[in-house]
């Protein structure tokens, strides 16, 4: 079975631009979470979606937004990019219940110049 897939793998943008990152969860999983991992740090929670509804939001500015589609795939959008947004963006999927593990994708490496 395919794991969590993310696209694109790498992305280079300039300050002020907008970016959209995509995630496809494991088949059957209904929950998708997004994390930002800055170089040298642990991942930080951005959003979680379950059944197309936002279930949780981390401490990120409104420039960050996300949505989940009927097929449970998800997009993360970041507007007005800053240099500090350069990071590895990780997507994780799970069944959605309380006691379940999150399976992570390989991530999208975003570089903002």
């Amino acid at each position, binding site marked *: 079975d395919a794991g969590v897939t993310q696209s694109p793998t790498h992305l280079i943008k300039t300050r002020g631009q907008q970016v959209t990152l995509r995630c496809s969860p494991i088949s059957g999983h209904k929950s998708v979470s997004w*994390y930002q991992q800055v170089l040298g740090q*642990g991942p*930080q929670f951005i959003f979680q979606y379950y059944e197309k509804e936002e279930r*949780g939001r*981390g401490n990120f500015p409104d420039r960050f937004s996300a949505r989940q589609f009927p097929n449970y795939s998800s997009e993360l959008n970041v507007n007005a990019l800053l240099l500090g947004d350069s990071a590895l963006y*990780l997507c994780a999927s799970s069944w959605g219940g309380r006691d379940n593990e999150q399976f*992570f*994708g390989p991530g999208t490496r975003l570089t903002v110049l």
Partner: protein
Amino acid sequence: AQSVTQPDIHITVSEGASLELRCNYSYGATPYLFWYVQSPGQGLQLLLKYFSGDTLVQGIKGFEAEFKRSQSSFNLRKPSVHWSDAAEYFCAVGSGSARQLTFGSGTQLTVLP
């Protein structure tokens, strides 16, 4: 708010030696605890998890961890390290109805031949 501390930024061990990676957490309720491993260019792979019950948890690749409530710790151990274990290790606590993960800053493991 919950937090996770991994006091060792970098650990070096010889192949075949034992390993212990430290993790301390801060969380008001009974925590859901996880250890993940990340190899270069890869996403996060779950090694083991603690939800409840037996405080000694067995995971994949010969790893185990012990939950000690009195010390707010969840240290990861392996009796004999293999060269393929070289990677970055993250401890995380799951909180909230969404089981949002809060990660530590990671411990980089180097294995000497």
